């Protein structure tokens, strides 16, 4: 299968503007280096031809921008969605966060995105250029010249544990539809579950104490599209700006995870953007794993309109006491 590349997307994006399908395009824009790519709204074919880019460093999930972007004027917004982004897209639709009619979605197949920090760890400082051919990554550095790394060695952690390469929503698909993957994404959650209580506490105390409350996790999260977040609302009894006590770090992350429980599609953006490298996705995954164990498998965003587990129930649901025990021991 041919890997989706910049040229193909540029052509598509330009075509969508030219033929009037959309009047603006959400995509990715070239950065200063080869890896610092910014999500951007493109308004003209010129701009697309000049600045649009797609490659191994286009990890950003564009679906959340649709909430804001569809509110601007009447025209349609074209958006490029990787498989994991399509789940977020569906979840946003389920929650009626934007008007489907105002969006032209192009699904693009994805084999996993690269993580620049992994590249830097291997290739060292001073990366002048980085490019990949789908198998190898060629890195040129200031100090050590050119190096070739296997792409598979620098694939982002979240993509290694990819749950699905299937585009679940699109008006048009580029590349193959992809398949749902039997991933090992819960391994780390299981590992923590099998730790002792003290170890678990130690692990999270250490991780969460790094939090600087920059809100990047929240602001990037496609499930966190609240008009006003409780943590920003002085009337919510929960507002705070900085973790002045270790309690507040926990409070913020527990409540945030709880608010997206059953709605989180496990896109992994939270961990990707955390400047302190806190594995925040593990909190969300714990909820996903518990939901799967307690109430049957549920993938948020797999279908538009599906009923999230927290706004649903059955008469025979597991009791909380039992659930806690099960949540600890179900490491299968």
């Amino acid at each position, binding site marked *: 299968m041919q890997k989706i590349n910049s040229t193909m997307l540029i052509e598509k994006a330009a075509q969508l503007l030219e033929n009037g399908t959309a009047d603006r395009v959400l995509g990715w824009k070239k*950065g*200063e280096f080869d890896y610092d790519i910014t*999500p951007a709204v493109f308004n003209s074919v010129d701009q697309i031809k000049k600045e649009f880019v797609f490659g191994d460093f286009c990890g*950003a999930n564009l679906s959340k921008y649709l909430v804001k972007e569809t509110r601007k004027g009447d025209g349609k917004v074209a958006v490029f969605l990787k498989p994991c982004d399509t789940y977020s897209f569906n979840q946003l639709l389920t929650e009626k966060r934007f008007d489907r009619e105002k969006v032209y979605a192009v699904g693009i197949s994805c084999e996993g995105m690269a993580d620049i920090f992994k590249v830097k760890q291997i290739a060292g400082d001073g990366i002048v250029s980085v490019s990949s051919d789908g198998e190898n990554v060629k890195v040129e550095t200031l100090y050590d010249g050119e190096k070739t790394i296997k792409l598979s060695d620098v694939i982002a952690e979240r993509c290694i544990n990819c749950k699905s390469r299937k585009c679940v929503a699109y008006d048009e698909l580029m590349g193959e539809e992809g398949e749902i993957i039997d991933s090992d994404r819960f391994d780390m959650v299981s590992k923590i579950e099998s730790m002792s209580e003290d170890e678990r506490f130690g692990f999270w105390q250490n991780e969460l104490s790094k939090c600087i409350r920059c809100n990047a996790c929240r602001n990037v999260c496609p499930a966190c599209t609240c008009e006003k977040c409780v943590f*920003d609302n002085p009337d919510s009894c929960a507002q705070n700006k900085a973790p002045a006590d270790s309690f507040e770090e926990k409070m913020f992350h527990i409540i945030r995870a709880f608010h997206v429980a059953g709605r989180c599609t496990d896109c992994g953006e939270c961990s990707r*953007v955390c*400047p302190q490298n806190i594995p925040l996705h593990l909190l969300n995954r714990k909820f996903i794993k518990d939901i799967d164990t307690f109430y049957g498998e549920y993938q948020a965003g797999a279908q538009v309109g599906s009923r999230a587990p927290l706004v649903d129930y059955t008469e025979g649901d597991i009791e909380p006491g039992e659930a806690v025990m099960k949540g600890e021991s179900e490491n299968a």
Partner: protein
Amino acid sequence: MRKCSLQNLETVFEKISESMTLYIPADTKDGADFTKWTKGVQMSQALNTNRSAKDFFFPQTEDLVEFKTEGKNIEVIDTRKESEDFAVFGVRACDVKSFDILDRVFLTEPYDSYYATRREHGVIFSLACTRPAETCFCGTFGINPAEPGADVSMWKTDSEMFFEANTEKGKEILKKLESVTQSADASDVDGQKKKTGEIMKKLPLSDLSAEKFGKGMTSKYFDSPKWRELSATCIGCGTCTFVCPTCQCYDIKDFNSGKGVIRYRCWDSCMYSDFTKMAHGNSRNSQTERFRQRFMHKLVYYPDNNDGMFSCVGCGRCLNKCPISMNIVKVMKTLGGEDNE
């Protein structure tokens, strides 16, 4: 100038920590960060720490005062503790420069005694760079990474660490370290300085110029249509401001613990929707305005009020950490680009 062998660096650490708490950059699984030195903690080889040394002088949260009510009376309690002396080891030139910028904010009227106390009690050992990263652009702001400054400047070679005191405080501490260091010649590090100078010219951002910014440029950039485009996908998080060594905005808040009210300050971010929110609402309502504020402050407003000094030091942290890879370099290039001529 003094020096010690790298093997003996630990004895230097030991010596310093006899009289004060010492923080050195140490490796964690997520990169380097300043860590309290205790025996065995190794100094990181990394170019720079994730978080800047700003935290030592201007911590993310800090209690200012406490109120207690008894019946209908209020008691005000100064909860400040006796500050202890401390040293921060291995601060890079860019971060050293950030203290100049912060000092101009906190040490002019109204004088910030909380910050000042920490400055008085802290000694900074700076460390010259030898391998700047592609994201470094300190040169843009006239910083020489080979001459890092602060109380004590340091240069690290393959086998030795060189120390040069720049201030009285620095001289004092180097004196204390005489027993564990040897005298050295300033020319011993000339080679390294020169080499660093060469590398600086080759950095991809070496051509980035701040010339088009600075004092009096408000009207030139304020209404630029580029802001909207640049900020279009900004998610409004505070990452850039919190990793920035020069961002100095804070909010003062009260926490009612039930037993009393603690008034504390905490970092704030101009990227947040409730930044400078007042009774009438927010003065900057859109993300575009907030985004513009941050960069205009770094590049225009601050220089306006501080003799042309920029409040960016080119450390590159925001380049590495921004979730959407938007940063001051892109802003400078876009605004200062040909289109804007």
